């Protein structure tokens, strides 16, 4: 309980500190929500969106696949090592 005391103090003080930090008002320039449309408007801008979209998705897939592949590789190596060690210990 003694160890938890600083944490409780922290949680109690946080809301107070946050209310103190009232951010000075500035013009809101961000979107508050997304508005759906039925069809895409005609492509008039210079920068095409498709390569960026495909690039983003490709990166996600590649990153996940590389990670899973590296896990699989290390796992098989460890399994071999484990089997090997068990055999050696059996012999002793």
């Amino acid at each position, binding site marked *: 309980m003694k*160890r938890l005391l600083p944490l409780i103090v922290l949680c109690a003080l946080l809301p107070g500190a946050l209310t103190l*930090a009232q*951010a000075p008002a*500035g*013009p*809101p*320039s*961000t*979107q*508050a*929500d*997304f*508005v*759906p*449309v*039925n*069809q*895409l*408007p005609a492509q008039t801008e210079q*920068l095409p*969106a*498709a390569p*960026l*979209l495909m*690039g*983003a*998705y490709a*990166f*996600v897939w590649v*990153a*996940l696949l590389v*990670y*899973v592949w590296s*896990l699989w590789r*290390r*796992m098989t190596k*460890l*399994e071999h*090592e*484990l089997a090997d*060690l*068990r055999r*050696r*210990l059996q012999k*002793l």
Partner: protein
Amino acid sequence: MARVFLPLVLVAMVLFAAAPLVVANAPPEQTMGLVQKIFYYHVPSAMLMFVSAFVCGIASAVFLFRRSAAADRVALAAGELVVLFGAIVLVTGPLWARKAWGVWWEWDARLTSSLLLWMIFLAYLLVRRFGGPGSEKLAGAMALFGMANVPFVYVSVNYWRTLHPKTSVVMTLAPGMRAAFWFCVAAFAALYVLLLTLRKRLEDRQAEVEQLYLAAED
């Protein structure tokens, strides 16, 4: 564990494979058009980055205060996943920003604090790798500070004037977008649990191997 594992793999694979189809069916957005569809991968990755940071922090606290080696292994797995999902967020975000805002990067509160959170957990991995003996505890402290950072990252976009969309976007999605979004969240969440389990299992094997080496020496 083994009985749950195979269904988990199947669920994750199916969900993840179906995600692009679901995303393609979602209506495009008015202002941002096609590129907004990056949202369906960007936001779930960010959510899982935060979740993983919490998992890592809590596991590190358990490791530091209860000296549980298993908790330390969970922490390492979660730490790696923070870096992985963080990398996804930090790459898909700028790709979206290039079209939506005209620039690859802005030093605003949300982007800066997300980058710092990612770097904290990158430093976590560096310390574990290069810190020498006893570095697990050091890394555990880093993870705790990283976890304390997460709420700050989340609210930063509501407190400061930034280009980044506010957190209210997720709760006010239109029906077509909502279904696609939460489907992707489920897909990513299943994938996260799967990766965490796999990575922890790898660490368990590593610990077993090390114990056997010690036993072989005796």
